[in-house]
């Protein structure tokens, strides 16, 4: 304000509408929720039936780790997750690309995928037993089936969204059909496919529990189911926390892949 008599400053009216993350707030929220639960369960204000003591959950976790059972449960679950999701995602991406490229395949398969999408996978458990047995097969199949539909939808959406001028450019330089698909359509669809995978993999984790309903002795899902049937809340929560961490981990991995593969995005 060099000389106020000259006039008044222009009022500021911008800013806002651009939330910036403050990391520590997230951590704080988690910590205070846990402390609140601990306090509530300790004082009895929250009954033992409603929530387990967070410290007990931690202890259960510790025991699980010490006894080596953690890895005994984690290993089969991870292998189911990886194999199932790999099958479902790869078939889903292939089918999605075919739908994105060919009129007849699109017309034939899109309604089918739309019809399959809202089918709950647990409803099909009895059938999966017959179709794929109660071994690893049915678990892979269930997870694959669950990841398949969202992957297909995301993939053909991504192919549809590939910039058409890029494709016309390829044609105008006389590139072969296969070159255009390989060098333009696929890389162009990659961002959409990866963000679809984020959802598909979250669904795969969710389906782990359903998959391990079928004759799984070990596995995080089986562990959770057993805890549920025994109404053992500490173990139930320990299992849920593992799945939740797994989800956060998978999402972080995809974020990493995105940063590596999609560095070209603005």
């Amino acid at each position, binding site marked *: 304000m060099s000389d106020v008599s000259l006039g008044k400053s222009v009022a500021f009216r911008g800013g806002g509408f651009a939330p910036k993350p403050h990391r520590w707030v997230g951590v704080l929220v988690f910590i205070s929720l846990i402390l609140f639960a601990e306090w509530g369960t300790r004082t009895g204000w929250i009954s033992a039936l409603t929530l387990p003591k967070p410290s007990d959950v931690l202890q259960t976790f510790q025991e699980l780790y010490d006894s080596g059972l953690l890895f005994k449960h984690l290993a089969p679950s991870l292998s189911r997750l990886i194999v199932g999701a790999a099958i479902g995602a790869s078939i889903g991406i292939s089918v999605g690309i075919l739908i994105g490229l060919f009129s007849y395949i699109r017309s034939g398969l899109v309604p089918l995928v739309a019809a399959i999408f809202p089918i709950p996978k647990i409803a099909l*458990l009895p059938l999966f037993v017959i179709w794929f047995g*109660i071994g690893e097969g049915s678990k892979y199949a269930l997870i694959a089936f669950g990841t398949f539909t969202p992957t297909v939808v995301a993939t053909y959406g991504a192919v549809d969204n590939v910039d058409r001028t890029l494709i016309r450019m390829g044609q105008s330089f006389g590139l072969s059909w296969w070159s255009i698909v390989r060098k333009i359509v696929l890389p162009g669809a990659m961002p959409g496919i990866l963000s679809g995978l984020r959802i598909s993999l979250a669904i795969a984790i969710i389906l782990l529990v359903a998959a391990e309903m079928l004759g*799984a*002795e070990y596995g995080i899902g089986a562990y959770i189911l057993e805890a549920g049937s025994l109404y053992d809340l500490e173990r139930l929560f320990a299992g849920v926390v593992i799945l939740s961490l797994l989800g956060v981990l998978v999402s972080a991995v995809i974020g990493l892949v995105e940063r590596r593969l999609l560095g070209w995005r603005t």
Partner: protein
Amino acid sequence: AMNNKIKVGALRFTSHAGNFVAFERGYFADAGLDVEFEFFQAAQPMAVAIASGDVDYAVTAVSGGLISLADKGAIKVIGGALSEEEGIDGQKFLASDAAFQAGVKTPKDLDGKKFAVTQAGSSFHYMGSKMAQAEGIEMSFTPLQKVGAIIGAMKSGQVDGWSIVPHIAKPLAGSGAVHIIGNVSDYLPDYQVTTVFTSAKHAADERGMTESFLEGFSRGVDDYAAAMIDNTADQDAMVDLIHKYVYTDRPRDKAAPSIINGTMRLNKGAALNIASIQDQLNWFQSEGLVDADITIEKLVDTSYVDIIGA
């Protein structure tokens, strides 16, 4: 009496007939209770519903979940219902056709085989485990969650053995898909399969209401036993009554054999075989499914009914 409104949890199985009869024949009303049934698809949520106070009384098998909830001070077993009794067709051990053809003719032959259970800590798990113990064999237990899934797995030969109530066992065996290879009662005589239970609060504070319920329930059980087991009353009328609740989607003539096949002993006066309960508790504890320091007193309130087998 007081005309109390109460909710009774039930599954659409013949083993819950005591409740159905007591309701239909007005025994609950006589005891001053205005009963409403709450039907469940599975036993486990029913136990949780008692704990949450959504349901007042129910009948179900002793399971790990039930014991856990009792340990949390939520529920109490107050009486007995279904029992294995010599001379009455009880639960069966089954072998899948594939296993049978491969030589599994008796429960002992299940050594090294896969035994189906719904979940770890279920009554199937207990029966199989006790049998294996008695025979000195090792089996692996395959949890399949749902009875339907187990039937599918048995039919397709993916599991080898299972144990189940007779009215499911017999038609399955009749179709040739599975074979009956033994009786549960041979290994677990006087097995207290299901029990009557309520919330710990009711057991402690609502003595009058709880006694009224057991009184009505016992009269229902008596009628059921008279008609279906002791043949001192009209079986057809009883089947008609039960058909109102069980197999309702099938015509009566198709439902009747299943209902009759499902007949098992319901303990008179809801007497409770404490020895069997203790054995079950011990087994759950030895398997590490429930806390090792849970006592029978925590699980059972023995003040309501006759205690047998002590």
